[in-house]
C-alpha cells in the first residue's frame, strides 16, 4: 500500500479524529438498523445528540492539538485497488483549515440539533426519529468532507451531503412543494457534481491519484479547477445555479439553518480553500470566480430586498454572502474567504434559528404576520438584531472583520467593478436586514404576532450560544489566520473599513427611515418586485426540464418502443407472414403434388444433362 510521503496508515490516526468521523456514522447506522428505536422519537434524538456532542468535543481537542503542534498530518488507507496499486485515499487529514472547519460544523450542528428538540417536538415520534437519523447522517457526511485527505473522499462527502439535503428538504414529503424543492435541489447539485466527477477523472488520468497537492501542469490545473468551480457554483448556489436555495426553505427551519446557511452550501467554498494548490496555478479560473462571486453577491442582495418570506430573505442573503466568499477566493485571499465562511456560518445560523423561533411563535413565515415582537420575544429579538448587525458589517462584530478582509482583497481588481459591486451589496445587505428587523420586531403587531410569546429554553440556549462567536470571532482573527498559515494584521483605520462601516450604518438608517418610521415609501422597489415575480431564471429551468428533457425522453421512448422494437416485431411478423404464404402451396389436390414430383424429376434429369 504505497502511502505518499508523510502519510501514516489509518490505524495510527488519533482517537478524536476517529470519534469526530465515526460517532455520527455509528449513530446513523444504529438509527437505520433499529427502526423500533427510531420510531420512538425522543430516544433517537438522544442518540444523535450524544454523537454530535462527542464529535464536537473531539473537534475541540483536535483544534487544541492543532493549535499546539500546527503542521498537516495525514492518516489514510487506499479505498480502491486497481492494477495492484492502491487508488483513492480514505482517511483523515488534520491541518489548520480542516480542524477549524470541523469545529465550526460540529458547533453549529449541535446547536441546531438542540434547537430542533424544541422546534420539532410536535412532530409524530416516527417522523421525529427519522429527522434525527437524517441529522446524524448529515453530520457524518459533512465531517467526511471536512476531514477528507484527497478529492475522492471529499467528493464522497460532497454527494452524501447533497443526498441528505434532499432527504431533509423533502422531510415534510406530504407537502408537494417540499418534494419538488428537494428534487430541484438534488438535481441541480447533481448536475453541477458532474463537473466534480470530470475533474476527478482528469486528475486521475494525469496524476494517477486524486490528491490536490499532486504536481500538475498549468493547463490541467486550469481545467480541474474550472470543473471544480462548476461544481461549487451548483453546491454554493452561485448564479445561475442558485435557484434551488430559496426553494430549499421548504425544509424545516433548523435544517435551513444548518445546511443552507452554515455548512452544506459552504462546502463549495471549503473545497476551493482546501484544493488551493490547484486553484493557485489557475489564474483564469480565479478571475471567473471573482466575477461570478461579485455578480451573485449583488444579484442575490437585490432579490433579498423584495422577499416577503423571512426565510427567503435569509436564503438570498446566504447566496449573496457566498458570492462574497467566492469573490474573495477569486481575488486570491484564501484566508479572507475562509474567515468569512467561518463568521458567516455562525451569524447566519443564528439568524435562521432566531427566525425559526419567530416562525414557531407566529406560525407563519410571512413578514406581514409579524411586527412588534421586540416586546413579546426579547431574547429572540436581541439575538436576531445582533446577528443582523454582524451580517451587515457593523464595526466590532464578527461580520465586519471578515467582510473587511474580503473587500480589502478585491480592491483595485478589474477596474474596481467587483469592488463596487461588493460595496453596493454591503449597503443593500444592511438595508434588507434592517427591513426585516424593523418589519418583524418593531411597529405594531400584525396577525398572530399579537399573542406571540417567547420560545422555550431549548430554543433560546442555542441562540445565545451562537451569539458569542457571531460577536467575538472577529477579534480572534489573528490566531485563526496563523492556524491556516496566513498572516492577518488588524487594521481598523483605512479607507475600506471606514467606507464599509458607514455603508452598513447608512443601510440600517435608511431601513429605519423607510420601515421603522414608515415615512418614506421607496417606490424604486416596485419594478424589482415585478421582476422577481416573473421568476425568470426559474422558468428557464422549467422549460429546459419539461419542454426539452421530458419531450426528448418521450420521443426516444417512442422510438425504442416502435422503431427498434418494431424492427424485432417486424422480423417475427415477416416469419409468420412467410409461413402463411407458403401454406397456400398445399392445395390438398393429389395431382398438384404429383406435378411437383414430376417437375423435380425433370429438373434433376436436366441438371444431369448439363455439360
Amino acid at each position, binding site marked *: 500500500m504505497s502511502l505518499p510521503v508523510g502519510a501514516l496508515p489509518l490505524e495510527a490516526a488519533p482517537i478524536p479524529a476517529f470519534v469526530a468521523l465515526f460517532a455520527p456514522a455509528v449513530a446513523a447506522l444504529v438509527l437505520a438498523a433499529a427502526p423500533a428505536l427510531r420510531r420512538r422519537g425522543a430516544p433517537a434524538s438522544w442518540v444523535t445528540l450524544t454523537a454530535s456532542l462527542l464529535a464536537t468535543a473531539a473537534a475541540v481537542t483536535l483544534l487544541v492539538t492543532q493549535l499546539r503542534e500546527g503542521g498537516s498530518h495525514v492518516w489514510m488507507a487506499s479505498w480502491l485497488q486497481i492494477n495492484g496499486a492502491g487508488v483513492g485515499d480514505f482517511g483523515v487529514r488534520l491541518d489548520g483549515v480542516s480542524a477549524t472547519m470541523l469545529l465550526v460544523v460540529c458547533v453549529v450542528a449541535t446547536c441546531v440539533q438542540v434547537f430542533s428538540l424544541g422546534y420539532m417536538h410536535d412532530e409524530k415520534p416516527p417522523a421525529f426519529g427519522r429527522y434525527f437519523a437524517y441529522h446524524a447522517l448529515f453530520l457524518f457526511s459533512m465531517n467526511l468532507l471536512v476531514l477528507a485527505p484527497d478529492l475522492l473522499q471529499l467528493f464522497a462527502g460532497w454527494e452524501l451531503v447533497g443526498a441528505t439535503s434532499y432527504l431533509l428538504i423533502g422531510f415534510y414529503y406530504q407537502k408537494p412543494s417540499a418534494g419538488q424543492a428537494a428534487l430541484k435541489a438534488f438535481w441541480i447539485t447533481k448536475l453541477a457534481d458532474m463537473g466534480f466527477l470530470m475533474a476527478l477523472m482528469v486528475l486521475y488520468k494525469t496524476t494517477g491519484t486524486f490528491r490536490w497537492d499532486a504536481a500538475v501542469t498549468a493547463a490541467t490545473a486550469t481545467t480541474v479547477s474550472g470543473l471544480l468551480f462548476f461544481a461549487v457554483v451548483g453546491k454554493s448556489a452561485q448564479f445561475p445555479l442558485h435557484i434551488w436555495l430559496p426553494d430549499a426553505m421548504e425544509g424545516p427551519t433548523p435544517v435551513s439553518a444548518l445546511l443552507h446557511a452554515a455548512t452544506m452550501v459552504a462546502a463549495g467554498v471549503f473545497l476551493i480553500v482546501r484544493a488551493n494548490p490547484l486553484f493557485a496555478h489557475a489564474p483564469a479560473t480565479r478571475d471567473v470566480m471573482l466575477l461570478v462571486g461579485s455578480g451573485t453577491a449583488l444579484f442575490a442582495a437585490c432579490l433579498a430586498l423584495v422577499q416577503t418570506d423571512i426565510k427567503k430573505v435569509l436564503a438570498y442573503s446566504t447566496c449573496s454572502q457566498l458570492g462574497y466568499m467566492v469573490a474573495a477566493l477569486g481575488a486570491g485571499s484564501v484566508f479572507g474567504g475562509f474567515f468569512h465562511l467561518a463568521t458567516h456560518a455562525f451569524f447566519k445560523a443564528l439568524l435562521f434559528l432566531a427566525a425559526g423561533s419567530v416562525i414557531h411563535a407566529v406560525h407563519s413565515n410571512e413578514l406581514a404576520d409579524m411586527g412588534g415582537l421586540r416586546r413579546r420575544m426579547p431574547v429572540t429579538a436581541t439575538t436576531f438584531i445582533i446577528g443582523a448587525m454582524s451580517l451587515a458589517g457593523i464595526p466590532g462584530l464578527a461580520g465586519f472583520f471578515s467582510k473587511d478582509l474580503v473587500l480589502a482583497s478585491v480592491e483595485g481588481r478589474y477596474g474596481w467593478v467587483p469592488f463596487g459591486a461588493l460595496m453596493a451589496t454591503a449597503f443593500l445587505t444592511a438595508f434588507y436586514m434592517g427591513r426585516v428587523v424593523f418589519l418583524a420586531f418593531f411597529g405594531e403587531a400584525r396577525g398572530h404576532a399579537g399573542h406571540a410569546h417567547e420560545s422555550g429554553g431549548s430554543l433560546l440556549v442555542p441562540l445565545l450560544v451562537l451569539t458569542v462567536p457571531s460577536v467575538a470571532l472577529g477579534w480572534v482573527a489573528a490566531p485563526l489566520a496563523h492556524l491556516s498559515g496566513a498572516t492577518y494584521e488588524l487594521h481598523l483605520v483605512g479607507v475600506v473599513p471606514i467606507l464599509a462601516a458607514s455603508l452598513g450604518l447608512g443601510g440600517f438608517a435608511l431601513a429605519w427611515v423607510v420601515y421603522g418610521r414608515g415615512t418614506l415609501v421607496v417606490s424604486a422597489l416596485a419594478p424589482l418586485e415585478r421582476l422577481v415575480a416573473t421568476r425568470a431564471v426559474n422558468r428557464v429551468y422549467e422549460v429546459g426540464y419539461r419542454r426539452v428533457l421530458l419531450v426528448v425522453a418521450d420521443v426516444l421512448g417512442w422510438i425504442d418502443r416502435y422503431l427498434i422494437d418494431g424492427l424485432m416485431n417486424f422480423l417475427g411478423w415477416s416469419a409468420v407472414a412467410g409461413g402463411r404464404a407458403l401454406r397456400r402451396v398445399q392445395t390438398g389436390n393429389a395431382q398438384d403434388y404429383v*406435378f411437383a414430383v*414430376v417437375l423435380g*424429376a*425433370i429438373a434433376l*434429369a436436366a441438371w*444431369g*444433362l448439363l455439360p
Partner: protein
Amino acid sequence: MTVAIGFGVVAAIALLSAILVVRSPNLVHAVLWLGVTLIDTAVLYGMLGASFLAGVQVLLYVGGVVTLMVFGVMLTRRHDGLSVPAASGSPWRGALTAAVLFGVIAAAVMRSDLEHAPVAPTAGPPAVEALAASSQATTQAIGFELLSTHVLAFEVLSLLLLAAIIGAVVIARRRDHGALDQNARTEASS
C-alpha cells in the same frame, strides 16, 4: 429391313393406343385401349427376344390387370349408364410437362450413343456366365438365374404379393353396417 418396318408399326400402334387410354372420355374405352397397348407391348417383347416375358405379360397384364380395371370402373360408377365420364383436369399443364419430360429423356438418349457401348460382362457365378454369353436369353436361363442369384428377391416377391393381397382385402372390405347405412342414407337423400 422388314424388322424396322414391323417395329415402326408396332411402336405406332403402342403410342396411339397409349394416347387413347389417357384421352378417351369414356373410361371403359380407356381400359380397353390399355389392353391393346399391353398386347402390343407383348408383341414388342417377342421382337426383342423375350418370348417368356411376352407370355407372362399377356397372361398377367391383359388377363389380370385389365379385368381388374373393368371391375374397378363398374364398381365405382353411379348407375347412370355404362359410359362413365372421365373428367380431365387442366390438360395444358399435363401435356407441357409430359413433352418436356420426353424431350429431356430423348436428349439423354441422343447424347449417349447406346449402340457402341461395350458389353459390360455381368458378374455372376461361372455357370450362369456361360449361359448369359449366348445372345438369346432363353427361358431356361431366366429360370436358372431366377432360382440361383436372385432367389432372395424371388422369395421376398412372394411375401410382397401375399401382403398386397391381404392389404387389398382389408382396405376394400365393407366396414361395419354403419357404412351401409351411410350409403343407404345417401341413396335416400339423393
